[in-house]
């Protein structure tokens, strides 16, 4: 268990900058998820911590020790790769023991650690098999086991669940959460899947275009996104964005939507043209006329909830969330009420301003 601190680290491949002066602190025992689209630099950042990519500028401290010049093996971190990266010709036991044998650990101690890890991951029966004889999920367990036996200062996960099928992914996700709760180790986890990020993280670091967009707890990121990018990237279905003109001051502030609907709100912004963001669950379908109305185009029934896709008069598309037993049908005109406390306005730079 250890702190990890990055101080304005920078990385370029040839002339292309992939990490631009990123600073970040991961507290001991914390589960931090790097979330971002492909090409955002999240995997590169993780590999820089692991030592698999060099750090061009800036410093890296792991457990109080300056580490940017250390070889990967000397950084006291363990990594779980997306493609498992198991040694194909070794048994599960040898895969786990290999790293410990490299540092000439005592044989009995190695066996003890392998057994413990096997028990934690419930793979005692698999120890003498080779990776080719295992299923994808079992291989991923071995990869995690190989990390556990090292008892590292920090675990690094590089999209560990992306090669698993949907059902297994959900199960392994829960197991990883349990593992973190039991081991209380520092973990850094890279993913492009916002569900994994929301469910696993103590804190999410959202990366885009080689920079950090926002760092915060899952709910902070969800409820108070720092930018339009974060607002759009986190949440499924995604946030609705509508054109809005803000007018009036103080208690008389009103935003006018494209279709002329006027919505009262409280926000610290001067009048002008903005983009208004609102999550589907903040739009309520009401029986009587409310803030505005639209025509339902597609109704997706998910059992516990219903997603209503709408067109406003001016052509703006919108998704509203209704209950599981919603009676809306495609073609219906639907009245909508906006929860004004969950409105966000985005300025031209994409910065978010949240309604009070």
């Amino acid at each position, binding site marked *: 268990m250890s702190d990890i601190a990055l101080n304005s680290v920078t990385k370029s491949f040839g002339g292309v900058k992939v990490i631009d002066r990123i600073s970040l602190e991961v507290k001991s025992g914390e589960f931090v998820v790097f979330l971002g689209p492909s090409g955002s630099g999240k995997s590169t950042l993780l590999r820089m911590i692991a030592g*698999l990519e060099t750090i061009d500028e800036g410093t890296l401290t792991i457990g109080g020790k300056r580490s940017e010049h250390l070889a990967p093996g000397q950084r006291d971190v363990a990594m779980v790769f997306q493609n498992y*990266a198991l*040694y194909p010709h070794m048994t599960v036991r040898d895969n786990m023991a290999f790293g410990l044998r*490299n*540092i000439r650990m005592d044989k009995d101690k190695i066996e003890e650690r392998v057994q413990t890890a096997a028990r934690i991951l419930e793979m005692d029966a698999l120890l003498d098999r080779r990776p080719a004889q295992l299923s994808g999920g079992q291989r991923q367990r071995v990869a995690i086991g*190989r990390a556990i036996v090292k008892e590292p200062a920090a675990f690094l996960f590089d999209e560990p669940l992306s090669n698993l099928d949907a059902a297994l992914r959900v199960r392994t996700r829960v197991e990883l959460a349990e593992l973190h709760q039991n081991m209380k180790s520092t973990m850094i986890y890279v993913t492009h899947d916002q569900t994994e990020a929301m469910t696993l993280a103590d804190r999410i670091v959202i990366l885009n275009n080689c920079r950090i967009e926002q760092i915060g707890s899952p709910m902070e990121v969800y409820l108070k996104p720092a930018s339009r990018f974060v607002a759009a990237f986190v949440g499924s279905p995604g946030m609705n964005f509508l054109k809005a003109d803000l007018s009036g001051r103080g208690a008389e502030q009103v935003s006018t939507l494209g279709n002329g609907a006027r919505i009262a709100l409280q926000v610290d912004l001067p009048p002008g043209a903005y983009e208004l963001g609102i999550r589907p669950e903040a739009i309520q379908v009401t029986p009587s006329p409310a803030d505005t109305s639209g025509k339902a185009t597609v109704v997706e029934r998910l059992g516990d909830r219903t997603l209503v896709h709408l067109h406003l008069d001016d052509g703006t598309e919108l998704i509203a969330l209704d209950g599981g037993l919603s009676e809306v049908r495609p073609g219906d005109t639907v009245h909508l009420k906006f929860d004004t406390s969950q409105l966000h306005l985005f300025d031209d730079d994409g910065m978010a301003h949240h309604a009070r």
Partner: protein
Amino acid sequence: MLRNTKKEWLIAYILVAPFVAIYGLIFVYPTVDMFILSFQDAPLIGTGDFVGTENYERLPRDRRFNTAFWNTAYFVALTVIPGTLVALAISLGVTRLSGRLQSLVLALFFLPYILPVSVVFRIWDWTMNFQFGIAMHLLDALGLERVPVFQTSTFFMPAVAFVTIWWTCGFSVLLFLAGLRAIPQEIYEAASLDNTSRWRTFRHLTWPLLWPITALVLTIQLILQLKIFDQVYLFSQGGRPNDNLVMVYYIFQRAFVNNQGGRAAAIAVVLFIMVIIIAALNFQLMRLSERNK
């Protein structure tokens, strides 16, 4: 659509027929004929009287056959494993390079392979010739005595083995490079996080993962080098051909110099059986190591 099975078979036979005809004519028929010939007292052209196994019975008592057999074995020992190791070492070096530099270095190592044997002979004759070889001037400059490399039986086989490795290892390097590229980079990354030293990375990862390629290179080399002829024939000119005899050279001598087709055929059959036995042993070895994986 209904399929006309008869017609399909007919088309298949027609398509395969040219190959079967040519294969039968230029491989199966001569092979069978050679077996028959080896039991006859035949000259180079035409058949002779049936003499039973006499051609074979002579061989253990034949001094020149003995020389040829042991020279071939010596040559195989000098080339197969050393050549494979050299190719492995070169490919391990080349694989660390990247981009154009890698292509350039690889091309340099592969260049000898595309040369015909006569050119190879000329190059190395110019280098090691007793009278005018460049290497001899080097020995002069160092104050050492000149060595008639290709005229001394001590140096002949090692020198020809060296030239052969230089000539043929480019191909093995290519095979090894393909094998090295097939090992996922992530495995090496995992190993570096596992504190694996360079030697242990080679010993415990690269070597075992590359073994199928190594076994393939060994087999190809083995079969190729058992059939050694050209280099020995060329380098023996003006030297001591009878001391440098190898199996194929001896077959050539018996058939084309001594006009004894029957006795030549018997030696050829022996070589044929040797290649088959060794190739089969090699195959078993590969299967064994495969099972250990």
